[in-house]
């Protein structure tokens, strides 16, 4: 009795150690990829800025408060990124915009991941008619371009932050359904799944505990890349006034309202766009780096 407990603890210790060494191995591979590290650093900075946005510049008194006397000023020591058409500090608005963009991006991807993941897992695991029905519906979703699908959902539900998240989330759902389905198909016939079934594990236990952990790599990679797409879609939708509404400082909305002043104060348009570009670039580099680190076999 005592022996078996000891053996069990030792087994646990060992699997913990194996997990840790796997993490260090992934981290080591990431570290060697300079572009991926660049992405990671920028994304980390953005996350920190988004969390402490109110400490950096207060939302009500700086980010959305109008101050017409100082309107359309270029970058200066006082206003790092200049001021917009209402005299609001653009840097402060960008900081709060980071919060909105990351929030919408992450929540939308979570919606896509959960809905698409569940559907994909069911389709892949059960196969047959279930698989056919689910995947044909996903094909229909896929046959409409993502941006148009999001526009359609926003048009039906009305534009608000939550609807935007739902719209972008549902629009990226089929991608996750496909990835999860493919991953499930690739592992479901392996021996360890058969072994789990043989000892009487239930279907949902097998899917969640045995199959899912083996599909994590492609999901993590795709999720990172999809946050970038989601942020870009958010900006596009806000730019055509179907996304986040004024006076909230969303990056795309800032570009939309600033474009009327592009001739006299180009910084209003240049700076937010550059920030969007750097954000997307960093997320893409991070995603590509993760792909190479998590699964060296996939390296292109």
């Amino acid at each position, binding site marked *: 009795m005592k022996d078996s407990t000891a053996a069990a603890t030792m087994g646990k210790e060992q699997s913990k150690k194996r997990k840790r060494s796997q993490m260090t191995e992934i981290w080591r591979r990431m570290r060697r990829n300079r572009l991926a590290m660049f992405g990671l650093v920028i994304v980390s900075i953005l996350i920190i800025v988004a969390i402490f946005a109110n400490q950096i510049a207060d939302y009500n008194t700086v980010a959305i408060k109008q101050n017409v006397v100082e309107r359309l000023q270029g970058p200066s020591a006082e206003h790092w990124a200049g001021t917009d058409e209402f005299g609001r500090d653009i840097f402060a608005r960008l900081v709060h915009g980071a919060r909105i963009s990351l929030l919408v991006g992450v929540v939308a991807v979570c919606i896509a991941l959960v809905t698409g993941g569940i559907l994909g897992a069911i389709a892949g695991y059960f196969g047959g008619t279930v698989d056919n029905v689910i995947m044909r519906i996903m094909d229909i979703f896929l*046959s409409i*371009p993502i941006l*148009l699908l999001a526009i*359609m959902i926003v048009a039906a539900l009305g534009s608000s932050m939550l609807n935007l998240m739902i719209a972008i989330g549902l629009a990226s759902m089929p991608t996750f359904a496909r990835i999860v389905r493919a991953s499930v198909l690739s592992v479901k016939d392996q021996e360890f799944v058969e072994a789990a079934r043989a000892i009487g594990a239930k279907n949902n236990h097998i899917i969640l505990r045995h199959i899912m952990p083996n599909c994590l790599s492609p999901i993590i990679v795709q999720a990172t890349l999809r946050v970038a797409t989601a942020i870009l879609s958010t900006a596009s939708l806000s730019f055509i006034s179907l996304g986040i509404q004024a006076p909230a400082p969303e990056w795309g909305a800032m*570009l939309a309202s600033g474009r009327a002043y592009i001739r006299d104060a180009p910084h209003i348009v240049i700076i*937010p*766009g550059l920030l969007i570009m750097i954000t997307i670039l960093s997320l893409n*580099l991070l995603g590509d780096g993760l792909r190479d680190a998590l699964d060296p076999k996939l390296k292109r």
Partner: protein
Amino acid sequence: MHKYIFKRILMMIPVVIGVSLLVFMVLKMTPGDPARVVAGSEADEATVAQIREELGLNKPVLQQYVDYMAGMLHGDMGNSYTTGKPVFSEILSRMPTTFILAFAGVLVAVLIGIPLGIISATKQYSILDNISTLLALTGVAMPNFWLGLMLILVFALQLGWLPSGGVTSWQGYILPAVTLGVGATANFMRTTRSSMLEVIRQDYIRTVRAKGANEKRVILRHALRNALIPVITVIGLQIGTLLGGAVVNETVFSLPGVGMLMINSINKKDEPVVLGCLITFAVVFSLVNLFVDILYAYIDPRIKSQYR
């Protein structure tokens, strides 16, 4: 070949029905009563009920869908709630602008992306390869509408070379087409590069080289034909993205296309026009995919044989 095309067209029918049904159902979820929109806020209940009856809005949703699709086959997509004009002709008159824009975008991307991809692959890890990789990375990350604004700033406002919007002349399409094409260019370049790299390592290429063919002939005649197959898939997929991008780009360059019509109609809650535009986009996208698949079979006979 004809059999394959026929089968492929048959396969498109359920997709078109599914897509249109999805669009129809989602738009029917819109809160608010369309009959009330048509009647105006001051109309009494009896008028609203009468309009509802006239527009067929009191029928079950599925019945409405069947009626709508039957009408669409005759070129009848209902009338706009705000202008009263037939939706079909409204869309038809704006279609050329959107098509020219999307086509010009693809053209720009193909003409720049594929040659760059070939050069990158044949001179792997050279300075040129690294530069185009860098350009591709930024091209994908750049918000399309922002690039449009930057091009307007430089070429229309600063240099005054090209118009900043409108389509009074063909020059009006240059900036929008370049804007639209840049994201796709990056994509085509990456795909061409990686598929070219794969192909030029194959045995038959070595055989061609061993026979003494010059490098130009090896790449353009023998390698490119096989390397282009994945590129064509990507082109097909990109056309959807480009149609979506065209919607946003029409706003940037104030082009009177279907996208602009759709966005204005969404803001005015003009449901029949929104529905018409979305279904048009979805059907066009399905047709493009059909065309790409058929093109595919011409280029790669192996695909066609799967359908025998």
